[in-house]
């Protein structure tokens, strides 16, 4: 998943035909028995598997599929919130102080190539099996791009602005809130968007090995255990669709109401 991948606007019309053709070919291949139909599954069977799971209710009367989706999205939201709070503060400090930046930059360089899922066994040892581990790994994965991009954004602010504000007696917290954060907003949002992608990936991955009962990653892994490829296919498509929806409806919207209103243009999509 490349950063900022995808078309600027989701033009539904251009999607319909190619995707329909793809699904038709896949369905046909499965029906004609080109490959083992159990392994290949088919779009109709995958859809049925997902619908059946959506119709299945827990004792409390909730849809099982809905609980899987909400669990993953909820975990991601908590992880992203934590990562944003810490990441933006650390990033702002890095951006304002050259020596802090120079000290932390090598640490970030070393930490960045480690994928979130590699931390999972360690966090499982620290926090046990279940949601806290998933949140912690997701937050850690999202933290680095958030902090790094915040720092880059703050460093790109014209130093004269900072000097003027300080000489006119603005307190450090005021400088931070009124100059640094708005000035760095486009970068911070790039970081948020990257952190969101990284966090989502990590949450799904760690759910596969550390979830107790809920989550889309857990659902896919469980389908594998019961040898139900149709549900695995359905789950894969669902993970992609939920990601695209969240990206379009939440991340892009946040970008719109902040940078565009403040008259800045996000450098993300060029």
């Amino acid at each position, binding site marked *: 998943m490349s950063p900022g991948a995808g078309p600027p606007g989701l033009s539904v019309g251009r999607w319909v035909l190619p995707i329909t053709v793809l699904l038709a070919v896949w369905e046909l291949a499965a029906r004609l028995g080109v490959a083992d139909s159990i392994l290949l599954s088919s779009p109709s069977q995958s859809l049925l598997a997902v619908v059946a799971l959506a119709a299945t209710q827990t004792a409390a009367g909730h849809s099982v599929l809905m609980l899987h989706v909400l669990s993953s999205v909820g975990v991601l939201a908590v992880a992203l919130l934590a990562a944003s709070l810490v990441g933006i503060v650390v990033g702002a400090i890095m951006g304002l102080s050259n020596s802090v930046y120079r000290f*932390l930059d090598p640490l970030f360089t070393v930490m960045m*190539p480690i994928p979130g*899922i*590699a931390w999972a*066994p360690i966090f499982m040892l620290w926090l046990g099996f279940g949601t806290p581990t998933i949140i912690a790994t997701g937050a850690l994965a999202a933290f680095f791009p958030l902090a790094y991009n915040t720092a880059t954004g703050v460093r790109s602010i014209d130093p004269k602005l900072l000097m003027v504000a300080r000489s006119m007696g603005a307190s450090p917290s005021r400088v931070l809130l009124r100059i640094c954060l708005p000035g760095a907003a486009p970068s911070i949002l790039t970081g948020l968007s990257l952190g969101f992608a990284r966090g989502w990936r990590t949450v*799904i991955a760690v759910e596969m090995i550390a979830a107790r009962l809920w989550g889309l990653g857990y659902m896919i892994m469980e389908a*594998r255990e019961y040898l139900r490829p149709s549900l695995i296919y359905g789950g894969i498509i669902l993970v*992609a669709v939920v990601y695209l929806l969240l990206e379009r409806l939440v991340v892009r919207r946040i970008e719109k109401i902040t940078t565009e209103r403040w008259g800045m243009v996000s450098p993300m999509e060029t």
Partner: protein
Amino acid sequence: MAARVPALARVVRFVLPLAVVTVIWQAVVSLGFVDSSLVPSPVQIARSAAALLYPRPLLFQYLAVSLWRVGAGFALGSLIGVSLGVLMGSSSSVRFALKPVLDLLIAVPTICWVPLLLVTVGMGGPTIIIAVFLGCVFPVTYTSMNGARAVPRDVVLAANAMGAGRAAVVLLVLVPGALPSIITGLRLAVGYSWRALVGAEMLAAAASGIGYMIYAARAFYDVNVMFVGLAIISVAGLAMDYMILGAAERRTVQRWGMVTKTW
């Protein structure tokens, strides 16, 4: 890269903060502020790494297996990704047919393919190589496509006017023109491949690989080995990025006078 700084100074600038953190970390664990069975000290981790190297160089064996898997998956993924991407960039009908599919597939976290591959292909090397392939092929296709599309139309028309056929235009005009994007894409894809490898090895490796080593250490609560694994993943990931693709970039793009932007 910033202004010219002597090589030695750059190394010191990079290593010094890491050394400081290591010393503080060691002190915190040695003085008993944290439980060393949960957070091992750097010395413990180094000892554990040494035990994995001698008498049997297990760590190298694991690393060799991992590098082979990531290399095979990446080679396959970049070959197909660049070809497909340039094709999509050069023909609007191919793009019309495949772009929506690409948009959807690029949104699938690579790890999601692993359970499917476990059912269809089974545990072991082939599943991991395919997972690495899937981890890098879509982003490479995407960046190559964008690169080929960004080649000015005038240049293509000029080549046509001078009698270049379709193949010549693709090979001699579009591919070189798209090269900055292609190399940027490949460079990112090295990271994606490495990430896919670690995840896939955790779920699908039968008995070897760095990801397997971390995951297997869970059974023995061996936190030292887990940290050794993280260190190897980080160092190998950085080394691949700087050595292989950094060099490729200097050789081609910079010599040809094009500038790329990667962080």
